[in-house]
């Protein structure tokens, strides 16, 4: 059984994650996003941005490893092998650009069991070194009880 004492806790902050131009291009290509803002630095700057624009779901590249690290911690007791993604929400305080250095803090918000499944809500708060908020990445994960 997952350890309920983790609920309400925040894990140590991870980072910095350096947002790179090539990672933005690679990720945009992988989701079929051909926007010049995510591929062409000149186009991004012409549109008033400091550098390449990360697609809205880009934060999964650095948030999911933090989440996986927690879920694979045997002290928590989560069955990672049978996990599915129930829902996901990303709220932006500002866009993510190439050159950003980002820090991610994982919060364990809720854990419940019903209808033979465990439901876990995890929230990643993404911020800069100056603690400027960037994004909140909240997901519901489900595994068999």
């Amino acid at each position, binding site marked *: 059984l997952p350890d309920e004492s983790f609920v309400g806790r925040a894990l140590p902050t991870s980072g910095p994650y350096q947002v790179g131009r090539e*990672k933005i291009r*690679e*990720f945009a*290509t*992988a*989701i*079929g*996003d051909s*926007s010049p*803002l*995510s591929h062409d630095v000149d186009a991004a700057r012409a*549109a008033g*941005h400091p550098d390449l*624009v990360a*697609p*809205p*779901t880009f934060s*999964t*590249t650095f948030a*999911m*490893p933090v989440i996986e690290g927690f879920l694979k911690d045997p002290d928590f007791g989560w069955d990672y*092998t*049978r996990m*599915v*993604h*129930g*829902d*996901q*929400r*990303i*709220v*932006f305080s500002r*866009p993510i650009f190439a050159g950003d250095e980002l820090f991610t803090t994982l919060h364990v918000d809720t854990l419940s069991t019903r*209808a*033979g*499944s465990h439901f876990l809500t995890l929230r990643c708060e993404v911020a800069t070194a100056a603690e400027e908020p960037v994004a909140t990445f909240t997901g519901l994960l*489900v*595994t*068999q009880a």
Partner: protein
Amino acid sequence: MSVQPGSVVKGLELPPLELHLTRADLVRYAGASGDLNPIHWSDRIATGAGLPGVIAHGMLTLGAAGRIVTDWVGDSTRVRSYGARFTRPDLRRRKWLLPPCVRMTMPVPVTRKRLAVAL
């Protein structure tokens, strides 16, 4: 293309998007995102988990489907929030699907200063 203020009315439907996802797309996304869960690339692991075969990453579906919105607004930095509920696969009923082609349109409710797009 960029959406113009005043051209948006409640109930507007955005142009449909068809996704044709191949195994190569899933492998590319696995590498780009770092999500290496083998149910997305290994038939042996996927069928062992009760699936008919490999399934797409939920975040790949979300990212690719979101192009309906980001292509429409023209600049993804105008997106303030983004979300999805993944209704399949269902863990209990064991109905797992990877449609070879997904066709989606999005009706758009509009509030005074913001718009929300529902799939």
